[in-house]
Every structure is written in C-alpha cells, then in structure tokens.
C-alpha cells in the first residue's frame, strides 16, 4: 500500500500532500519536514530509495525523484515493488506534463486542485488505480469539462445576483 504522496519544492515547501492513512495536520507537517530533512541532505549520485522507518514507522520505504525545483516523494510499504513505484512517479509526472504543457512549480502551486484530481485518478486509497497516462488524462478531462459546464451555469448568475443584492 502507498502511504503518502508528497510533492515539495527544494526549499521544503509542500506543494501537494496526500496521506492515505490518516495523519493529524500537525503530524503531517512534521512528516513533511523530516522527509525534507532527509532528501535535502542526500548527495547527487545516490539511489532514489530511502529507508523511512524512522519517519513513517516500521516497514516503510520512500522513493523520490527530483525534477527541477520539485521533489516527488512516494512513501509505501513492503507490499509494493520499489522499482515499480519509481515508474509510477514517472507516470504521475508525465501525466502532469501532458495536462499542464511542460509542468513547472507554478502550475503545481496554482492548480493544486487539479493536481488532486489527477492523483486521485492514479492512486486510489493507497492502491494503484491506473498506470496509463492517456487513460488518466481522459478521465481528468471529463471531470474538468463537467466542472466547467456547471460552473458557467451556476456561478455566474449567483455572483451577479450577489452583486445586485448589495
């Protein structure tokens, strides 16, 4: 099972954090900080795996990838294949890339909503849901279309009415 997905920048600011087993908010911040502590002190040419027992409890591993200013971190237990997790990060990043056309940190910051939508189509309750980025994008686009459609119907008149009420 995947325990958590964290995207953070190289300064340690979280950009996306999703924990699949419940963690209180303070604990989440603490975990993110300790993960950053580990990652920032790692050398360049080392493996992408970190034993995470000291951070996330027994039988947990952490795999990360470093893209430009972002760290993509997956935390998982022994029921997942480490190398496959590495590929899953690849799938996630490729999907983001296709959705945002050359994804950069700013896209991630301002569209964290959409990030969650994408992530939810790849990982579901800690299990791998879909590994084809084409399938993911298809699903995400459907959802965006639906949102937009209802947004144009519902939000505009409402805000107009709100404006008039003033």
């Amino acid at each position, binding site marked *: 099972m995947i325990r958590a997905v964290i995207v953070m920048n190289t300064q340690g600011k*979280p*950009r*996306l*954090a*999703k924990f*699949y087993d*419940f963690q*209180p*908010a*303070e604990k*989440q*911040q603490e975990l993110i900080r300790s993960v950053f502590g580990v990652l920032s002190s790692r*050398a360049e*040419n*080392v*493996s*992408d*795996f*970190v034993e995470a027992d000291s951070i996330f409890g027994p039988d947990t591993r952490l795999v990360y990838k470093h893209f430009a200013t972002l760290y993509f971190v997956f935390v998982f237990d022994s*029921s997942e*294949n*480490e*190398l*496959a997790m*590495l*590929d*899953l990060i*690849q*799938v996630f990043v490729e999907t983001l890339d296709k959705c945002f056309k050359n994804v950069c940190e700013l896209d991630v*910051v*301002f569209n*964290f*909503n959409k990030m*969650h*939508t994408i992530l*939810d189509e790849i990982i*579901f*309750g800690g*299990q*791998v*849901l*879909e*590994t*084809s980025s*084409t*399938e993911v994008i298809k*699903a995400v686009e*459907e*959802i965006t279309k*639906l*949102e937009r459609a*209802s*947004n144009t119907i*519902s*939000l505009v008149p*409402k*805000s107009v009415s*709100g404006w008039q*009420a*003033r």
Partner: protein
Amino acid sequence: MNPFSSGTRLRDMIRAIRACKTAAEERAVVRKECATIRAAVSENDQDYRHRNLAKLMFIHMLGYPTHFGQMECLKSIASAGFPEKRIGYLGLMLLLDERQEVLMLVTNSLKQDLNHTNQYIVGLALCALGNICSAEMARDLAPEVERLLQFRDPNIRKKAALCSIRIIKKVPDLAENFISPAAALLKEKHHGVLITGVQLCTDLCKVSTEALDYFRKRCTEGLVKVLKDVVNSPYSPEYDMSGITDPFLHIRFLRLLRILGQGDADASDCMNDILAQVATKTEPNKNAGNAILYECVETIMSIEDNSGLRVLAINILGRFLSNRDNNIRYVALNMLMKAIAVDAQAVQRHRATILECVKDSDASIRKRALELIFLLVNESNVKPLTKELIDYLEVSDQEFKEDLTAKICSIVEKFSPEKQWYIDQMLKVLSEAGNFVKDEVWHALIVVISNAPDLHGYTVRALYRAVQTSGEQESLVRVAVWCIGEYGEMLVNNVGMLNIEEPITVTESDAVDVLEIAMKRHTSDITTRAMSLIALLKLSSRFPSCSQRVKEIIVQHKGGLVLELQQRSIEFNSIIERHQNIRPALVERMPVLDEATYSGKRAGSLPPTVSTSTGSSLNLPNGVAKPPAAPLVDLLDLTSDDAPAPSSSDGDFLQDLLGVDLAPIPSLSGTSQAPPSGTDVLLDLLSIGTPPPVQTNPSTPIISSPSQNSQTSVAPLERLSSLSSPLSTQVSSPAGASPIVDLLDGLSPSLSMPDNKAQESNFSGDNNGLVYPSIVAFQSGSLKMMFSFSKPPGNPQTTIIQATFTNMSSNVYTDFIFQAAVPKFVQLHLDPASSNSLPASGNGSVTQKFRVTNSQHGQKPLAMRIRIAYKVNGQDVLEQGQINKFPAGL
C-alpha cells in the same frame, strides 16, 4: 452578504501567500483569510463555499488548522452540482479526521451518490469511500460497492475494486461476498480493471484463507494463462512503459502468484514455466523491465522449492549488481539479503560482485553491501574477504571508515583461524584507521596478545614498525605503548623470532623514544598518555640504562594540568627514586588477561563489578587461581606481593596505587570498579580467609609472574612487616604496619571461628594477671613455633606474644624471617628477632616478641596469618599458615 467575503480569489490568496517574505507575514495573511472564511461559514454563505473550501485545502496543506471547514465539506457534498460535490469530497478526504460522528453524517450522502445516475459522481463517491471508509461505513455501503463491480464503465469497475480492498481491510468478515465478483474481474480485458482486480484478489487472499484456497484451486491456471498472454501480447502504446507493456500489470500478477504459490507445491509447479519465461525473456535494459525481473525473483524465492529457478533468480540479482543504475543495485542487495536465508551457496557465487558494491560511490549501497558481505563470511573465505576489505579501507571515505572497521574487526574476531593472523589483520586495521576503531576492539586485541605468549615478541616488533609509519592512529599507538611496556625487552633482543620475520635492530632508547613521542604528541589524549606513563615506568626497570631518561620524562608531568597524570608522575617518580628495591617486582609483567572474563564482561553477561568474581574465587583452593579481578590490579602489576610495602613514611602510596581512581583503567578493563574492590582483590590474592590453615605454597607469587625465580618471589614477602630482613632498612613502626592492616580490611568476619566465639561469650571480667597457656602456633615437618602470651597491666586490649622457633631438622636455617599479618581491627607491632639463623636439631631457638592490640577486644577473637621464610643449604623455603586458636580473651 459580507462585503469582505468575496475579497480574494483562490489564485489571489496563493499569490499573497507566496509574496510573503517571512513566516510571520504568511501567518498574518492566512489569519485574515481564515477570518473571512469563518465569517462566511457562520453566515452560511453558499455562493463562495466552493472557493472557500479550495482555500482551506491550501491553508491546510501549509499546516494551519482548518477544522472549522469540516461541516462546509458535508454541506458541499449534499448539494446537487458536480463542482460542489467534487470539492466537498476532496475536502472530506483532506480536511476531515477520523472522528466517527462527523463521518457518520456522510454515509447517507455517499449512499445516494453511489446510486447516482451520473457516473462521475459515482466515481467521486467511490474515491472518497476508498480513502476514508470506516468499519461502520464499510458495513453500510458494501452492497453498493459490490454491485458497482459489475458497472458498465470500466472506470467505475476499477474504482469499485479498489474500494472493495478498503472495505475488506476494515471488515474482513465481508471478504466472502467479494470472492466471486473478484474472480470475475480476472477475466477482464481492460488493463486498468485487470490491475485492480488482481490487487483485490491479492488482498482477499491476505485477509481470508477461504479466499486463498478458492483462488489457489480455481484461478491459478487461469492467472498463469492471462499472464502468458500479457507477456506475449503485442505492443500496446497505451500501457507502454519505456518499451515494456504494462509492467505494473506484470508485477501485480507475479505478486498474486507468489501468494498462491507460497506453501503449495501444486500451484508452484503450475507457475514454474511462466516464471522461467518472465525471468529469461524480460528486457533488462530499462527500469520497467528490471522492476518485473525483481518481482519475478521475489516470487521465485518465495514459492515452493525449485532449485533451477532459484539459481536463475539469484543470477538475475547478480546481474543487477553490475547494473549502472544505483536503484537497481540497491534493490538487488536488499533481495540478496533475503535470499541468503534460502540459498546461501548461490549467493556466495556473487561474492566478488557484492564486494565491488562495498566500494560503490553511493553510501547507502556501500552500507548494504557491507552488511551482506558480513553475512557471507565464513571460515573458508574469511582470509580473502578480509584482505579485500582492508585493502579498500585505505581508499574509502572518511565517514565510511567507522562502519568498515567495525565490520572488519568483528569478522576477524569471529572467524580468525589463528592468532597470528588475527593480530596481523588487527594491526593492519589499526595502522590504517586506528582513529575510527572503537575502544572494545583494541581492548580485545590486547587480551588476545596477552594470551599468545609465543607471539609476544613478534607482536611488539610488528607494532614498533607500524607505529613508525602510522603514529597518528591513536588506538594503534595505545596498543603499541602497552606492548612495549610489557614486552619491551623482546623488542630490543629480538626474542621469539618467527621465521617470516626480518630481524630489526632496536635499541633500548629507541623503544623509549616511541613512548616519549606518544606522550608528547599533542593529539594524544589522556588515556594514551596515562598508558605511556605506565609503560615508561615498566621500561625504567627493564632497561636500567634508560632509567635516568625515563625519570626525566616522567618528571616533566609533575606539574601537568591533568590531575591523573600529575599524580601518577609523582608516584612513579618516587618509585624510581626511592624504591629501587621493590621496583622490579612492582612493574613485573602482567599476568595473562583472562579471555573468558573479558569477553564475558564485554558481552555484559557477567556483572561488571569485581565483587562477584572475587567471591567466586574464594572457593578455589588457596585462592590462588587466576585472579579474576586482574584487569584493575594487573594494569599496574600490583600483585599481592608488592602491595604491603615496608616503608613507613611512604606506606600509603601503594595503597593509593591500588585504590586510585585511575581514570584510564576503567576504560581499559571495560569496567568501572570502586576503589575498595582493589583491597578485596589483594585479600583474595593473599588468600586470607580461606580455610586451609597451613599453606606451603609459593604459588601465589608465581601465578602472577611465571618467569620470576624463587628468589624474587620471596623477596617481597620478606618485606612483609619483617624486621629481620636484610633488605629492610626501616625500623618497623605502627605506621609501617598499617598498610597491611588496611589491606586486611573487611576480612575479619571470615576469621572469627565458631569455637572462639563460644569461648568468648563465656569470658567475662578483667583478664589482667590471668595466665594464658602457651600454644604451638605452627608446626611443619621440621619447624615448630610456640607462642606464649602475657598482658601488660591495665591494658586488656594488648597482648604481648613471644614466639619461639625451633628447628628440628639437621640443617641450619639461615636468613630466617618471620612475618605476620592480622585483620584490620588488630594492630601488630613486631620487635626484632633474636637472631636470623636457627640452629639445627633443636639446639637452641630464635625468639621474637611482638605486640598485638585488639581494638575489638571481647567481641572478636584474635587471628593471624604468618609466613616464615628461610634458607636451607642456600635453598629458599617458604612456609605459611593461619592461626585461629588463640586462647580466649585475647
């Protein structure tokens, strides 16, 4: 409507937060946003609920409290529009904690949405349920999810499958309902559904044995067939992962097969072919291919035995080890670690490659490889492996050296075939990385050296050479200093040359040079310096020619800032200057360190205090067995014989030596001993308190110094409160006797004899003027000692004893010395003997008067240990015994 609530859009808020320069600024912005959101919440503002929730999620991610938004999520979920529902469910997953009462409110909305006509809303509900489902919700909603497993849209089917996993994990009882729908999913063509279906089966097998049996019997063959199709399927761009078709699906399949094959020979047999096919046909160029291979290896190692496949699997891992990708090497090492338990022999074949990984540039790989090597070492390969590791030690990173030396040392210690090899390897490690070696390691080395008498010379010479080149390695220097102190003369005289050695010429002053350098090097710490001081003292006696120089070096520390060194240097200086006569005995070579005691202490299986071991040795005959407390006393070579010093003025200093809080000593022996235990040890060595009343055993001194001739072994005894000793120049005085008395401290109870007590209890009244019967205090084959008693008037505590010695043999006893020791509560004052030669055949006698004062008169009876030394025809004879049968009332 609150005019401020519409203030900023989500995008503006994020920008404002990003523009903050300090954490305080950020907090202020967040506080303001939270205030407006709270206001909106309390006004039940519906227009901006969507946006407010999105903001809250961002704020939550930054780590600020957002609990006030929880009800908003529920309201949002309950609303009709898709965007509201979506943000509501997202908020539900992110913001809500597992407090049941809030979640209970959601169950109804979820139920409605799972039955919604819009499949995307069904998808949202499934997603939320899969993330936050509690046991109650699982029970309530399981039928809906089960139904959705047959939904027409594959996206819903796969979400329902994963949602089922959450449900059966929360409520394992529900597993049986899901078995047949899950089996149906295995026939899917859609890869996404197939992955989730296989995953559902895997988790069903984990929670329910019933499911495991079912899948094992009914599905194994089908699974193998599907996997075969997947492996042989033509290129499909959708699920392509760097040239490999859907590695994730492969992996899920292999994992399920592993669970089915574990402990079931039939199922394992059924999957052998496909495993072999995956293992041989998968392209190992890319990460995806290696991921499949890795999973395949794990499955092969877990299912029932098939040795051919296992060799194949371990060879794949061996190939991984030479892969250029760090990640692959890392997982391979992890897997090999597990594989050792299954087939150590096959892993051994890849030793060379694993050894290469010890030299990897990646620290985490090095560490793993080293651990793996450690598991692979055995008696047959220890030599080449150690050589490789030691060679690598020379070039390894500084921060890796500590791990590396620790492992090398423990390998060498565990598997060394012979002592010389052990010593050689340890010297190599110490010269290479002595500064990284833990204290226990060189302590153990000293114990081993001490136990290898035929290698003493070899070792000290090797150390001498090593120290010339690697003088900066602290622990090497310490071992060298210790050995030069102990075996210095072997260094100079090339004693005990081995064939392989080249002779070296070392003068006495060269040896002292080493110690002087160790002493003066600025990086030497106090332990090294203290050890050097002791070694210098030892050399001063062994190399008389250097004695003056040693003294000068020692004197330099008289004004040292470290109390320990200062005190030691003053003491040693005084030994050299004033106590030439006892020095050789004082600095005698240490007895062999007891390996068992030492290793026991190291392992912590023995209590670290000496008291227990002393106690146990009391049972040994004469208490002569190996002194178990050796480490403390031995470091100073203070064997019992040396302890009772004859001098009056300096009578205390030796006790200091014994009772000192020698800072380096506890660290040397690995224990911390309280000073009084030093006294116990001596008592033990003197074997006082042991039952045999008569002992003619010269072995006490001998144990501690096997090389001593009998002359020197007697010499210290002669000084035991002896007056007639020709060596002893001081006149005996109460002060002179006090060290002995002190040494006997704590022994008195064992001396009191029951019969004496009984007599004593009957005794009453003033004993002045009473006449006590004379006793034969001691009688051996030829020597008889009579005691007669008298009491000075007005002083009941004091007894004057006149000892009369008679020689029954036909030879004259010359150099006759009588010595006595008493418990602490008694004071002893010896007068000079009438003569130091005892005529033969009872023709005359020697008398000696002495005075004892029993400070516990009336409570404890008198007791005494005696030693009589004399020469017969130039031969030394030593007799000793214990006297308990003093008349009552003394």
